């Protein structure tokens, strides 16, 4: 593999998530809290010398979102939203049927996390990100559940589940 001209660095914005509602066909089927992280593309480019740090602050949308959840989904309520419903003899509801859910939540800005060298060399970038993301945001994002469940399950435990959510169709607005 060829030499990498850019060195990837860490530049992440951390939020706490509250009032998270998981919806299927517009109907509330679960409630979650947790944490959310926006990982920003951040690099050190060595050319032209002496090099430069570059971080891409998002415009109106989101690049992607990493979420860790706490809470639960009401399996029966979720099943009732399916149209058409899965065949009665299916004892396991496949994960592909659970790809069209949506998450709406409030995100409270917590901190900006970056490599020590970034903090030391370009502290203004950290401050700019802090200013940009400060406050409370309303998030609406597609939320594929990512696992199957048994038809007779009642509550689906969402504690400490990790998600990588595609920000392309997300709405992320300051409140």
């Amino acid at each position, binding site marked *: 593999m060829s030499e*990498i001209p*850019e060195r*990837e660095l860490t530049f992440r914005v951390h939020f706490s998530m509250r009032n998270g509602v998981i919806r299927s066909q517009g109907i509330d089927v679960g409630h979650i809290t947790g944490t959310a992280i926006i*990982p920003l593309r951040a690099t050190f480019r060595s050319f032209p010398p002496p090099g430069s740090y570059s971080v891409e602050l998002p415009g109106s949308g989101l690049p992607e979102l990493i979420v860790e959840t706490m809470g639960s989904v009401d399996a029966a309520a979720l099943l009732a939203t399916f149209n058409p419903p899965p065949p009665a003899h299916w004892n396991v509801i496949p994960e592909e049927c659970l790809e069209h859910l949506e998450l709406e939540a409030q995100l409270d800005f917590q901190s900006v996390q970056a*490599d020590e060298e970034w903090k030391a060399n370009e502290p203004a970038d950290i401050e700019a990100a802090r200013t940009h993301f400060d406050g409370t945001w309303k998030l609406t994002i597609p939320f594929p559940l990512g696992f199957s469940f048994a038809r007779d399950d009642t509550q689906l435990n969402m504690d400490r589940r990790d998600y990588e959510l595609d920000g392309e169709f997300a709405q992320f607005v300051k409140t």
Partner: protein
Amino acid sequence: MTAAGTKVGIQRLKNHRVLLSISLPTSPDGTAGRKCPSCRRFFKVDREVFGHPEITCPYCGATNSSNQFLTLDQRRRLRAAASRFGLAEMHRLLSNALGSLPRSSSRGLIEISIRPGRLELPPLLTYLEQETIRTSVCTRCARNASVYGIAMFCPNCGKRESIAVFEQAVRSAVAVLDATKSLPLEKRRVLEAEGGLDQLAENVLEDVVTAFEGCCRTRYEEVAGPGALASIQSSHRRNVFQRFEEAVTIMEGALGRPLGAGLSPAESAELKVAFATRHVLTHNMGIADARYAASGGVTPTGQRVQVTETMARRSMELVGRIIRAMY
């Protein structure tokens, strides 16, 4: 935090298989994250334990293949490395295949031209490991683990250490008691009025007795064997280790030495009352009864026992001394 290198090692194996070696970021203390596939909780281990084929979750004790304990960040980085390799390979194969063709050819209405382009590889994602807050050291194998909650198992040797379980219970109780001190005065007053502080002190006392019982049971089994434990539980009662004096006598018999060095007679009497207090809290809604009175309790029979934070902390200290004397 220690950044991982950006080099990806590539080893070509038989049958078109490829082994990629990717460095993962670690904390400054050399630990790297793990996430239990069973309870989904996060912890960190040192480099050597990270490389073990099997690992045990310090929280729930689930043992599984090390690969099952990848964190999301680690999975993202490995996936990024794999897709970078895949794209580079594809580019190389296509370049080789098309390189021998003429740069452009035209026949009739169709014209094909080939221009070698620059390959844009996706980034090799990186991350910073979570900060180490508390390190748990296994008394059996001496390995460290960074834990973020009640941890009873060693990720390396998988053992459940009875003394560590007790120390953990004490540490958690002290942390909660201390946390109430840092509450703003107004919130502390509300908590006190709601009974929260009383509840907390009572819970700590109950937890101390439970931890003592569990520790005695495990230690007895370690010293005398599982058969002896079953035998003593059937000849006495299952909860034999909940009675302080009886438990100490049994443990002294099993260890073959007195535990008196741990406590003075006055301190032993103090603990006896604490255990009796816990008993009425658990079984009699906190109302003092004849058994409590016989243990030396000062609350008159029929009245509710009072547990203060001082009593809870003192019980923790005294129980800690007697437990440590068992090892």
